[in-house]
């Protein structure tokens, strides 16, 4: 049979070696028809042709198309590495697609800085980011190492942890950071001389100009454009900017709406406002969000809001249940008073706005789940999908309760690779490390979950999160928590439709179903067919967003 509907301009059918739809009722296909940016038909070429479409694009015939990856917790700041050189231990793609090898020693860092200095006017700042000494067995970085790179430039090395910077002697002199400086966080050597370490933003801010430069880059519109490139290059078609303030000011909202609207912006953004201000300000906050929602477009949505309740496990600032941290001092603190969480969230819950709450520690997950229980007793809303984001140390009892309340979890499963060994050996010990980001248990309990990268904390790449969830492998070849591993099919859904669900966007994105956006990830191999340990090595050709292909600029 053929459709009696007339064709539309731009109708196209893409054929592929295989299409993975993330739609369990029709998991695979070989052709997909696109009309007005949406999926018109998915199945065989013959199925699609019944719509009277004559344009067949065969450029992906030897490739694998999948439902576009959804990244439900990342940050626009991802784009900053275009302007601030990356010097981390793990090699990484930059937003423009260039590959930067990891820095594996202090000497390598010095060489990297020296080559930047060679092309930088004397006196101009050299600010680099992502330095990760956790895997280095070389001497602790000090101003003396950096002085070997240059004495003619202020050098500011921002560490991956976000809690430390190391600066050179040029900076120490520029800001009169001398022996006996009173600011907490200034590091000294055993002779009482500053060693170049500036701990926490308060001390980093002593290096005024260089510190400010980072902030300027992070919040520039240019960075938003780089963010879109980084996401496209990773095959991501919908990415959340989890925790911003764009909705608050008309001008900033307008700027972001325009920046995301242009054709070269190749990702759909879930722009997620971060809850700030006290509980009395929440009603106005809700109104602002609702007003901002009326201005959004196809590529920018404001689907949920975000709250932050604690810090990080590796920073010992997550709030963790008894018996607390394995080694190291417990710095766990709530970022909002726990007894006020219900008051903060009530206006959002009542207005039907979903909430993603940053909870790394088990105590914080418990506080958030309990708050949602209170809100649900007060006000019925069965489809809230309130999400515990990170949820790294969530307990089994918490998961059962969260499931019963209709909540979701967004696991930071990349941690198993990037910090799994540190969690096992240092932060929380082997047993709780094995139960971190517990995808297996969540499946056994029936708790809905997705994966995220928290980019730029770890690189945005859903093939990597899938790989981490399937293998839970560490850099030294160990497996942390084998019972929490899941299969590739489950991981694929967590990287696509499950994230869309948490963002209340599963009617729009996350799977290839008739009527949804024609958003696809274009892969050179099928992640289901490759060896489990090779899932992260599957190459991304690029994406198709609303039916429009966009090739990755990533080089390797």
């Amino acid at each position: 049979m053929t459709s009696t509907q007339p064709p539309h301009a731009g109708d196209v059918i893409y054929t592929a070696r295989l299409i993975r739809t993330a739609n369990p009722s029709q998991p695979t296909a070989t052709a997909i028809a696109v009309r007005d940016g949406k999926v018109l038909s998915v199945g065989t070429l013959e199925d699609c042709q019944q719509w009277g479409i004559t344009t067949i694009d065969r450029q992906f015939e030897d490739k694998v198309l999948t439902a576009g990856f959804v990244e439900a917790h990342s940050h626009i700041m991802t784009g900053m590495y275009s302007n601030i050189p990356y010097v981390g231990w793990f090699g990484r793609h930059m937003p423009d697609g260039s590959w930067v090898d990891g820095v594996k020693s202090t000497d390598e860092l010095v060489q990297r800085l020296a080559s930047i200095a060679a092309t930088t006017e004397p006196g101009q700042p050299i600010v680099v980011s992502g330095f990760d000494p956790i895997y280095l067995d070389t001497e602790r970085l000090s101003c003396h190492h950096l002085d070997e790179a240059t004495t003619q430039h202020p050098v500011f090395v921002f560490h991956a942890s976000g809690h430390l910077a190391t600066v050179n002697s040029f900076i120490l002199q520029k800001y009169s950071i001398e022996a006996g400086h009173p600011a907490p966080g200034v590091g000294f050597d055993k002779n009482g001389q500053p060693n170049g370490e500036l701990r926490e933003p308060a001390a980093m801010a002593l290096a005024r100009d260089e510190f400010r430069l980072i902030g300027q880059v992070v919040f520039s519109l240019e960075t938003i454009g780089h963010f879109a490139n980084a996401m496209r290059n990773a095959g991501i078609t919908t990415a959340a900017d989890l925790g911003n303030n764009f909705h608050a000011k008309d001008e900033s909202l307008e700027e972001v709406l325009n920046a995301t609207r242009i054709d070269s912006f190749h990702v759909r953004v879930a722009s997620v406002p971060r809850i700030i201000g006290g509980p009395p300000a929440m009603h106005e906050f809700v109104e602002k969000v609702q007003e901002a929602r009326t201005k959004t477009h196809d590529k920018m949505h404001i689907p949920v809001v975000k709250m932050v309740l604690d810090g990080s496990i590796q920073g010992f600032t997550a709030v963790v249940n008894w018996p607390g941290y394995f080694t190291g001092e417990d710095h766990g603190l709530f970022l909002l008073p726990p007894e006020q969480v219900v008051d903060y969230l009530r206006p959002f819950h009542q207005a039907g706005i979903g909430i993603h709450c940053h909870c790394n520690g088990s105590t914080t997950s418990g506080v958030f789940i309990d708050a949602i229980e209170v809100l649900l007793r007060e006000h019925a809303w069965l489809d809230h999908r309130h999400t515990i984001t990170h949820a790294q140390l969530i307990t089994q009892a918490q998961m059962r309760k969260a499931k019963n309340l209709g909540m979701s979890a967004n696991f930071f499963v990349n941690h198993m690779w990037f910090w799994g060994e540190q969690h096992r050996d240092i932060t929380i010990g082997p047993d709780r490390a094995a139960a971190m980001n517990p995808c297996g248990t969540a499946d056994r309990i029936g708790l809905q979950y997705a994966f995220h990268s928290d980019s730029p904390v770890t690189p945005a790449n859903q093939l990597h999160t899938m790989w981490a969830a399937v293998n839970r492998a560490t850099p030294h070849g160990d497996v942390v928590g084998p019972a929490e591993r899941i299969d590739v099919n489950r991981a694929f859904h967590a990287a696509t439709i499950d994230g869309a669900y948490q963002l209340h966007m599963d009617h729009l994105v996350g799977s290839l179903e008739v009527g949804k956006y024609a958003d696809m990830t274009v892969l050179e191999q099928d992640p289901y067919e490759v060896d489990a340990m090779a899932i992260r090595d599957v190459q991304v050709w690029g994406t198709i967003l609303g039916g429009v292909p966009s090739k990755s600029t990533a080089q390797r």
Partner: protein
Amino acid sequence: MTQAPRIPVLVIGGYLGAGKTTLINNVLSSATQRIAVVVNDFGSVNIDASLIKEKHNDTIELTNGCICCAVGESLADVLFSILDRTELPEVVVIEASGVANPAAVAAFAHIEGFHHLGNVVLVDATQALETSKDPLVGRTFALQVQAAHLLAITKSDEATDSVISEVRSIVSSLAPSTPLVLTTSATLSSLMMNLAPHADSAVAETHTEFSTTTLSHVSAQDEQQLFAFLQNFPSSVVRAKGIVELANGNRRLVQKVGSTISISQTELPTTGLVLISLK
């Protein structure tokens, strides 16, 4: 090193509900200095900012602290922007959030152009017993108390004497050498602003006006603590006088003239402390 004037920074801390908003409003309505108030949202704001804004337009609200990565618009940026102004404030008052560690907030006060005057931490007499033992926030409470340079028990009129003395002992066991006052918000605000010198106090000789502040309930663990408390007053406090009770129940007559401090035994009833400062 530049010798530009450094703007003193006072940090007000204390757990949720301890009276920080009231205190800040008191400061804004009564102080004679030009004040910039920073409502710290590096985590949260437990304060109705609009209430502050009504009283004084020089209030800065932090809006976009980034927890994940620790960069971005932060308290540092707010302080930098204060230095960019044509008319500099004479004092910066930062309100730490109800769960913040005031020491972490105060760490920013060492940025060039500022100097850290101290942390005033408020303890709610009606809530402190519960908060200090709370499994979720007990440690937050302790860190706040330990970060104080001056502790003030607020809402004492709403608590019984026995509760107040229990609060007092919890607080002094956490921070045995920190001066502790029991006072109203209004009194505390004038005390604080007396601690903060006027920008031109270097030319004190030309001043003819003085202000008087009464601290109605000053207590101290022992003489050493009392001495330290008096010593910490800035040079703008030209005189202090009164009778103060020590922890063991004995009383001391206290006098401070300029930098000379005298402490002597007395049988007279406590009077609190009268401070005279340059206006």
